[in-house]
């Protein structure tokens, strides 16, 4: 796979473009604190596509908004979190500094193209606005550049369509226009938050192909967020599986689908429609994602996990290397697989650090 190889080689060369460490985003309500993103860490290297996949409510979108600095009160990115982009620590940025990063550093495409364009301004106006703010291009030059951008995202008759309003565009065209608008800022990283979810399947495939082409042309890094395992398989180089605010498994896309190790990932893959014969019916995961409002002193998937055992409710699992290849980890007490249960628990405890209070409890097992 050539795409995989280029991504691998890019990673060997240097530092990650985006490096998220211990990201914690909480939402304060009157009654409780919801840990929408709870200790998430991952990297994105230049030119590669990293997927984040998970059910609704697993914290994918909040992760994206945290990176963009778009989390507003009552949400808060806790101070222990670190988001490094191009060597800069974004969490320390002021509003004005963050504005510099948005657009020209990191662009973002949202789920609903029906609503992500301002209905009262023309497409051209909104693309030119991005050009003016990020690249100081105005006037006739901006119109020319905007036409070029619309053409590059595959909108025919671009010059005329610049003068049209969003409601005159179809859903797929609108998403293309949003992508063109974000490309106008010349970002190094594009965060795509379920960009194809609101589109029908054929349009979905077109948008995915477009993103792949643009990535190749511009060496664009993409952080792709979706709940759709099929889309993830199509576009990602590496995948992070999220559950209830935490990443439970990280792997290259091949490893993830060939050798899923975390019980949640396995369940997700088994519930993809069409993977099984008709007679069996569709596998589902019973129950729903819990609201992460308590500290993670246990495995949050345990209540729905077919392989859960006693310690799962008492101890937070740590990421363990599970594959022969690099960077395949799963946060599950079933690993390392070759060890007995007691050994495994000890291993996780050691990784978590000795001062963990919960350690005493699980000693009694």
């Amino acid at each position: 796979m050539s795409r995989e190889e280029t991504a691998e080689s890019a990673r060997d060369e240097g530092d990650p473009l985006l490096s998220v460490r211990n990201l914690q985003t909480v939402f304060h309500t009157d009654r409780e604190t919801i840990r929408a993103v709870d200790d998430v860490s991952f990297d994105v290297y230049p030119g590669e596509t990293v997927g984040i996949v998970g059910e609704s409510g697993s914290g994918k979108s909040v992760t994206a908004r945290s990176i963009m600095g778009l989390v507003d009160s009552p949400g808060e990115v806790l101070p222990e979190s670190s988001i490094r982009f191009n060597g800069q620590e974004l969490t320390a940025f002021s509003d004005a500094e963050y504005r510099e990063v948005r657009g020209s550093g990191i662009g973002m495409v949202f789920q609903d193209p029906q609503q992500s364009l301002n209905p009262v301004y023309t497409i051209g106006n909104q693309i030119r606005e991005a050009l003016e703010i990020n690249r100081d291009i105005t006037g006739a030059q901006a119109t020319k550049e905007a036409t070029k951008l619309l053409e590059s995202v595959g909108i025919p008759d671009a010059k005329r369509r610049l003068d049209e309003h969003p409601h005159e565009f179809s859903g797929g065209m609108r998403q293309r226009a949003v992508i063109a608008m974000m490309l106008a800022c010349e970002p190094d990283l594009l965060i795509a938050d379920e960009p194809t979810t609101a589109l029908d399947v054929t349009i979905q495939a077109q948008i995915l192909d477009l993103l792949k082409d643009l990535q190749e042309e511009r060496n664009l890094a993409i952080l792709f967020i979706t709940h759709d395992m099929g889309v993830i398989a199509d576009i990602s180089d590496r995948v992070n599986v999220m559950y209830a605010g935490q990443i439970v498994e990280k792997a290259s896309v091949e490893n993830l689908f060939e050798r899923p190790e975390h019980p949640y990932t396995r369940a997700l893959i088994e519930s993809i429609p069409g993977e099984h014969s008709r007679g069996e019916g569709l596998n589902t995961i019973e129950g729903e994602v819990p609201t992460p409002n308590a500290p993670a002193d246990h495995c949050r998937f345990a209540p729905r996990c077919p392989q859960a055992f006693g310690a799962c409710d008492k101890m937070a699992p740590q990421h363990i290397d599970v594959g022969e290849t690099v960077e395949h980890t799963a946060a599950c007490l079933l690993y390392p697989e070759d060890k007995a249960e007691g050994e495994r628990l000890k291993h996780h405890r050691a990784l978590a650090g000795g001062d963990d209070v919960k350690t005493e409890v699980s000693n009694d097992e």
Partner: protein
Amino acid sequence: MNRLLYLFKRLLLAVPVFLFGITMSFMVLYLGPIDPVLNILGQDATPEDIHQLKVALGLIYQDGSTVPLWSQYLKVLTDLLTFDFGQSWIIQRGTPVGDLILNRMPVTLWLGFWSVVVALVVGIPGGLYAGLRANTWRDYIASGGGIIWRAMPNFWLAVMVVGLLSAGGLLSFYPDLWVSTDVIGTSDSVGNLFGSSQVFAGMPLLEAIWVPVPKWTNIATAIKWILPAALVLGSSSMGNEIRIGRTAVLESINSKYVETAKAKGVSGRRIVTKHVGRNALIPLLPIIMSEFYLLIGGSVLVEKVFSIRGLGNMFFRGVLGPDIPLVMALVFLFIIVQVTVNIAQDILYTFIDPRITLEDTER
């Protein structure tokens, strides 16, 4: 569709509205217990006088038989449509209605103008402010104020304001605050100040202001004099603007397109002025436009309580008269204003919201 063509179509559609409004007014006036003749001549009138007057007013024929109602109706209708408003029956017997209206119009326009200004200047920024600071104590004060202003009925608020400002009222300790002694606050209250103020003493407003040189002190006096009434008249629009403005701003600022605009690096100020502003204007437009109706027709109660001798006050007395030619002419005028405002509003919509077109068959 071409905007001119649309305008033409709307004007055609306005014809039934005119007919309906005039017919309803005519019926209400004529079917009510009216006796203009008695009101004009008083109790001691001789039968001959009564007979003559009735003939003069077009109520009976010379031979004493009643003019049929439909015939009177047709006369009223044709007169109005040919802009022949006739002469006043009661208010100023014999004066052409057109002159009466032109004479009173400046005061009402002056009142309406300031009520619109007060409402716009306080209401729109207030709504923006509340929406941008949603759910803070500042917002609660602003939007709570909006609800209170909206909820206070005109006639009640008018009485309260007059009470506060006139002699013996709470604010009468500071007569210079609003009113020089010849404005409000004398025992005659607002009524005779209108006569004694040089500004509106029987002459058109423009003359008072512009000829021969602008009399700035007169303008200042005129503004000071009208503001309490303008505040009362504009109060409910002002409250509405705060409430609707707040909602519109909130809806827009939480929208996906604002988030997308932020994601492409647009600054907060520009988000408010460009992306939120125009979208928030869409629901505000009908409220702003309805204010222009205040310019002419919305002021009956307020003018009555403040004893401002404008069109509204005259309309009220005309109905009681009944001074039928005057009332019909005013109704005609009110309908013209209302229809014009409605058409203007629909055309303005197409300028601020491109999703609205004047086509009725498209897609």
